[in-house]
């Protein structure tokens, strides 16, 4: 009885792992001892040692050692989760040391899913896994960056090029919303809504993509879920790791601009009285430099009989490639797991980080207040090259053409933008085995994110500070706290050939944000930075804010597997949220999935070629609780009002009550196929999905504005959007032998997005241009089109004078050499022969046709080589930089030298003239690219050498990032992300993509890394 229960546990590896150190005898002839280690000679504790075809066995202790009594001639089987099992037939030896090799097939790998884990082979949903090695192939600040190109259907983009500390945007399977965030839910070690730990501390990342996988997160699951598992200690020897790297960085590209002489003659063509300035300045040279990143990580982990731990400290520092920009971060992480009794397990995850970003103003919203002059990158392109940094009076120069902007060097060096971010998180859990197969887990966690922003513009920056304001300083602070308590029961039972797992739980979350800001202008001195607002003669309106959301939920899941062939999963979550409106406080999100392991059917079981074939299908509903706190209530708002020179209290109607407001719902179908060939040396996964998102929360543009509410368009659940796509991932082991191995991981994904319904079927226009362009409309939402296609004039080349070519027209007053556009007919099919705003149309679509990632890994003896390409095909880019540079009121690229003149008529560039800044197809370009994201050559010292110096492992690597980019795009980099005044918020990230303006430049790096383990 005792033995058989032990055996059962061994057969159920997950539970068996909890019970360490059980050894017993059965009265055999020989005592065999030995050590089980992994490839790096690290002992594996808890590995199973079984006498084949018996129920007799043991486990290794925490030094990886085992002792077993066994008859000669018997066969021992050594196994451990994630490693290929080995069998050794005894021929009289008494010492058997075994090295277990990680399982190439990875089919029995355990994959973390929401509130539990499953064998990968039993997964019925669409789940991608990214392993530690991929995350750490090259140094990144944010683990999210490392996901780029690694998982099909996952699009990762920096919100501002290579800016140190720029926010990273992740989108899974397209934008499932218009106004709400399309960013996935991040869950770290079970803590919902956490920030990413730093990459070196991550064991694995699972990306849950379909509703079957995400519905357990209900109203937070519509955008997919990223589950992060941090590293845990293993019983056995103490492991100490030190990882360090240094990367030298430079801008990957620069624009070819006019020099001072060329610029002056170009300006004189526009305005003959333009006088050339005294200097010849290359502003790009002045603001760019060689930057670097350096990252040091120190960790130690290990465990005693009943306790495991992992602790790490990390220091990251980046000097940006634009002068005066840098980022610094310190991170700590500790995980402790204790097996208190054989039934009770306790654990804690602790995380803390402080980031300190010193930015330069880039990618500004270009508000009219400063003519876009608070953006050093676009200013470096625009600013007159015939001016120096200082004028004859020793003052910072102001641009000699166009809006009065400060020169970019002055802005970069004199302005201060500092952001300090603190993140702390603690999560405790208790896991108690109530009875065989039934366990109860309770977690309690708390996190806080504190952000302090300081901005300062000295009085020497005339326009950037807002024009002779005598300097401006603003401070803002926000504090977000998140409390989470979750409790769930898991029950596991074998029923004949079937296996049943049940999960039921309750969760409570509370999220609270408080913030304030204050500012002043007109300082008595520039020496205060933003630390003495009282010294400002003009006080800006201070603000403070509060919001709070509560979420309480019940959730459950049923998994039933029959005969290791048929898999069934059903999930449901019921969410109640305080921010939901009075009539819709609760929501239910169900999903179901089936899987069929065809390769386990009799007719395929013995097939030599097909080692795995599985079909998966799922359907479910998930939500996006995009309603912000208090959004459904009738409200007043304050406005600024002045009576008799004094500011007075003033309120205005903000919005009417909407008691019916509810969450957005995504209805997702997923059909997937997994195929493994030749012992899974070729593994293919194909997934097709269709996501209908309904009840989209849209500002009701159909609500008449004459109703007089401050929020002119109140939020209603009306829109619909569809995403459908195909994802393919192919992993192959091309060559594997003792000295040489070559593997290839390939992923391909395509997402088509269509706006299905808008309020009243009306077009919605959006604007992602810099404010000083004075343009209202750059993108459009239209039923039947992709969300956020480009809106503007269709350029038809240069007008050669005389009669207008059929279907074209020019702006009023245009002459030969000016721009020719398509004359768009009105609803009656009539064209008016002149270009007005009525002649705008859809002129481009930023959505890529597909994205790919290709990784090749080679190992030869102790060398390893990683080559990682990432690419995007199709998708237009709007070169807003050129809208500015070809406008006549700024410097320009050398292309302008080919402007139309009466003697140079065969050109696409109109004559030199001042023009309004217009969005037209003239500036739409193909954004396809293929990028060598990383190439890394590593060398690991042979173990006999490293042992001599007291190390377990010593590895060096040299790598390069972004060294090559193949693209036809004429701007600096086809990976663009300018959002105008939207600044990358939820709505603009969903709908106003593909614009290039003033991005912090992307960088290329050369990196040296060293990893030590002892």
């Amino acid at each position, binding site marked *: 009885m005792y033995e058989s229960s032990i055996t059962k546990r061994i057969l159920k590896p997950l539970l068996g792992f909890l019970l360490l150190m059980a050894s017993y005898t059965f009265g055999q002839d020989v005592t065999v001892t030995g050590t089980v280690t992994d490839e790096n000679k690290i002992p594996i504790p808890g590995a199973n040692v079984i006498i084949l075809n018996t129920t007799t066995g043991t486990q290794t202790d925490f030094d990886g050692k085992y002792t077993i009594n066994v008859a000669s001639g018997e066969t021992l089987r050594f196994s451990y989760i994630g490693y290929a099992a080995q069998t050794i037939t005894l021929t009289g030896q008494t010492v058997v040391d075994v090295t277990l090799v990680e399982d190439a097939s990875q089919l029995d790998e355990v994959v973390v899913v929401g509130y539990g884990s499953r064998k990968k082979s039993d997964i019925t949903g669409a789940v991608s896994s990214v392993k530690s090695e991929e995350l750490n192939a090259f140094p990144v600040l944010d683990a999210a960056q490392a996901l780029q190109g690694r998982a099909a259907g996952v699009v990762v983009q920096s919100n501002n090029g290579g800016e140190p500390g720029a926010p990273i945007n992740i989108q899974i399977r397209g934008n499932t919303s218009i106004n709400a965030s399309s960013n996935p839910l991040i869950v770290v070690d079970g803590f919902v809504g956490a920030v990413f730990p730093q990459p070196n501390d991550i064991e694995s990342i699972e990306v849950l993509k379909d509703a079957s996988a995400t519905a357990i997160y209900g109203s937070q699951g519509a955008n997919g879920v990223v589950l992060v598992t941090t590293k845990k200690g293993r019983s056995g020897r103490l492991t100490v790791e030190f990882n360090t790297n240094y990367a030298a960085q430079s801008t990957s590209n620069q624009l070819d601009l006019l020099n001072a002489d060329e610029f002056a003659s170009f300006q004189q063509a526009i305005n003959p009285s333009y006088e050339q300035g005294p200097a010849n300045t290359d502003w790009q040279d002045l603001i760019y430099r060689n930057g670097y990143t350096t990252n040091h990580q120190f960790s130690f982990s290990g465990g005693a009989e009943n306790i495991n731990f992992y602790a790490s400290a990390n220091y990251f520092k980046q000097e940006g490639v634009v002068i005066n920009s840098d980022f610094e971060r310190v991170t700590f992480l500790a995980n402790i797991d204790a097996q208190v009794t054989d039934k009770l397990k306790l654990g804690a995850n602790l995380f803390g980080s402080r980031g300190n970003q010193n930015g330069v103003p880039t990618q500004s919203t270009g508000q009219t207040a400063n003519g876009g002059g608070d953006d050093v990158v676009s200013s470096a392109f625009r600013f007159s090259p015939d001016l120096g940094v200082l004028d004859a009076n020793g003052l910072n120069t102001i641009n000699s053409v*166009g809006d009065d902007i400060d020169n970019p060097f002055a802005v970069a060096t004199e302005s201060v933008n500092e952001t300090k971010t603190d993140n702390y998180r603690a999560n405790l859990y208790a896991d108690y085995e109530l009875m065989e197969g039934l366990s109860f887990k309770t977690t309690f966690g708390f996190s806080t994110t504190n952000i302090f922003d300081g901005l300062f513009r000295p009085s020497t920056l005339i326009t950037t500070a807002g024009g002779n304001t005598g300097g401006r300083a603003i401070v803002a602070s926000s504090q977000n706290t998140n409390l989470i308590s979750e409790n769930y029961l898991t029950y596991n039972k074998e029923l004949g050939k079937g296996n049943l797992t049940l999960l039921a739980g309750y969760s409570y979350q509370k999220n609270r944000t408080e913030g304030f800001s204050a500012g002043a202008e007109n300082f008595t001195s520039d020496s205060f930075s933003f630390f003495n607002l009282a010294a400002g003669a003009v006080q800006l*309106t201070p603000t403070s804010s509060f919001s709070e959301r509560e979420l309480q939920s019940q959730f459950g899941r049923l998994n039933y597997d029959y005969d290791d062939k048929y898999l069934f999963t059903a999930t449901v979550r019921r969410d109640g949220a305080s921010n939901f409106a009075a009539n819709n406080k609760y929501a239910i999100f169900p999903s179901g999935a089936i899987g069929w392991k065809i390769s386990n059917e009799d007719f395929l079981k013995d097939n030599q070629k097909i080692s795995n074939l599985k079909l998966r299908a799922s359907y479910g509903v998930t939500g996006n609780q995009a309603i912000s706190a208090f959004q459904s209530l009738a409200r007043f708002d304050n406005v600024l009002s002045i009576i008799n020179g004094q500011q007075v209290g003033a*309120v205005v109607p903000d919005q009417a009550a909407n008691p019916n407001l509810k969450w957005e719902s995504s209805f997702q179908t997923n059909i997937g196929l997994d195929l493994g060939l030749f012992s899974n040396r070729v593994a293919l996964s194909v997934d097709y999905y269709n996501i209908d998102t309904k009840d989209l929360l849209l500002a009701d543009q159909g609500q008449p504005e004459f*109703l007089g509410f401050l929020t002119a368009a109140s939020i209603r659940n009306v829109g619909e959007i569809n995403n459908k796509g195909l994802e393919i991932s192919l992993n192959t082991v091309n060559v594997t032998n003792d000295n040489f191995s070559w593997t290839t991981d390939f992923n391909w994904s395509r997402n088509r997005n269509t706006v299905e319904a808008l309020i009243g079927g009306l077009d919605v226009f959006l604007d992602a241009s810099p404010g000083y362009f004075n343009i209202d409309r750059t993108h459009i939402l239209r039923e039947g089109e992709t969300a956020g296609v480009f809106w503007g004039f269709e350029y038809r080349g240069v007008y050669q004078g005389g009669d207008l070519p059929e279907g074209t027209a020019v702006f009023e007053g245009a002459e030969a050499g000016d721009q020719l556009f398509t004359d768009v007919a009105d609803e009656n099919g009539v064209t008016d022969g002149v270009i007005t705003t009525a002649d705008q149309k859809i002129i481009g679509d930023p959505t890529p046709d597909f994205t790919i990632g290709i990784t090749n890994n080679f190992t030869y003896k102790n060398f390893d080589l990683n080559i990682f390409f990432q690419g995007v095909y199709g998708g237009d880019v709007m070169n807003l930089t050129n809208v500015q540079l070809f406008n006549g009121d700024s410097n320009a690229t050398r292309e302008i030298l080919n402007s139309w003149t009466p003697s140079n008529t065969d050109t696409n560039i109109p004559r030199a003239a001042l023009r309004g800044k217009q969005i037209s197809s003239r500036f739409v370009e193909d954004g396809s690219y293929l990028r060598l994201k990383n190439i890394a050559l590593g060398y690991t010292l042979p173990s006999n050498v490293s042992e001599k110096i007291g190390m377990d492992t010593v590895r060096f690597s040299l790598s390069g990032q972004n060294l090559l980019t193949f693209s036809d795009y004429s701007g600096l980099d086809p990976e663009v992300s300018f959002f105008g005044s939207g600044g990358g918020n939820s709505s603009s990230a969903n709908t106003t993509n593909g614009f290039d303006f003033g991005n912090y430049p992307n960088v290329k790096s050369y990196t040296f890394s060293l990893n030590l383990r002892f």
Partner: protein
Amino acid sequence: MKRKMKTIKLVLLLIGISVIGCSDLEENPQGVLAPESFFNSIADIQTAVNGAYGHMTHEDFWGRKFSLTIMLRGDMVDIGDPTTSLRRIEHNEFNVLADNGMIDGFWTRVYQIIGAANQAIAGAELVDADQDAKNAVIAQAYFARAFTYFHLVRLFGDLPYLDAPVTDIVAAGSISRTPAEEVYANIIADLAFAETWLPNTQPARSLPSKATAKGYLALVHLTRGDYQLAYDKAKEVIDNEGIYELALEPDFQNLFNAATIDASQEPLFSLDFEAFRNGDDGQDYAPALTGIRSDEQYGIGGGWSVAVPALSVFENWDDDDYRKAVSFDATGVFNGNVEPFTVFRDFNSRAVNRPHIAKYTRGTGTTANNNGRASQHNYSMMRYAEVLLIAAEALNEISGGNAEAFQYVNRIRARARSGNGAAVPADVSGLSQDEFRDLVMEERRLELAFEFKRWYDIARRRMGNEVFGASGFEGEKVNFDPNQDYLLPMPADELARNPNLTQNPGY
């Protein structure tokens, strides 16, 4: 069995410990205001009226979009910077489309002023206080509503008209246009209420007084050609100028100087900008729009040369008229040197070689910076000189060649002469009804130059064919169509939202 009980107890205990914070999910908003609990005192009514004033100083209204639109539609101010946005040029050239961005921009805000006024009037009913005391404050809201609808009805004709806060969005959102006649009747009724209950004087001209209501009644009647009523109301103001503390500001320049305008007795109602800005709330763009690009003379960072008078406006204005010097800047300062307007463009290619408006750049106050956006200007919506001109114009229509009417104009001309001691403009006398009608219109054009009045004069007097013809200041405006352009298009998106709204002729 005993074991089982123990297990169950343990489960219950663990669940008990862990299920914390079971919530009813009700929201308890903090930092936001709920309408039902807001109105408790007369001060709260004033706070709600202040919301209407606050909206008036937004960029969408007098900060830029509304005021610039009516300025550009007139015959005096042309586009300067040729690269300025199309939505502005369209108004100057009369090829405005129904989706024009200027109209879209201000339409919303103008109705927000009305929404705030309606909320104040309705909210007052929730306040338990002396009715007369309440009326004195509510009367401000009636004035604000009439003031705003008066602008709208002149620009759009028939209007969607709301006089109560909206609670049913669907019902309110599907109303038809109320005929202009009826809108005018409501405006007159609102102003009559204001006239009854507003005090004779207020602590500041940014609050309407009894005289303000009378002055606006006079202008409304004048606009409608009800000259007797117009004259009567103007006369009531003039006869009581002492009681209402009204007078012509001795130095015309002081009207456009932030340092002196606060104490002036000339404005009847003004919008106060005071360098307190919150985004585009309280942001004054007029100095930027009318100022000279790259000009250094006022230390506000120059202007943008967007709205620049036609050269012939300058050329056809007598140099000896002091008001010309106050209204124009014919020189700028560049690189420390004074330069004439004929070379403005040499210093900035987006400038234009014409004299610029000086009324909003010369005296922006001590805090002005940022191209003047932090000005301390008070914009006079109506000043006493206009009341005199209304009386003169109306009286002349009632009985031509009236000496009393000449005398109102002569008061204004005397003030103009006293600025520089010149003999220009001379007193008027002995004119016929037709001659004096033309003279008053011309006097309004010069006295109130660039003060956002001209378009309304052109429209009410139907002068378009003349002033936008070949002999007009800005040259011939080929697109001007008298059957269309006296009214703006109703915003196209607003028509799409409410199919019961109709478009104006020609659009």
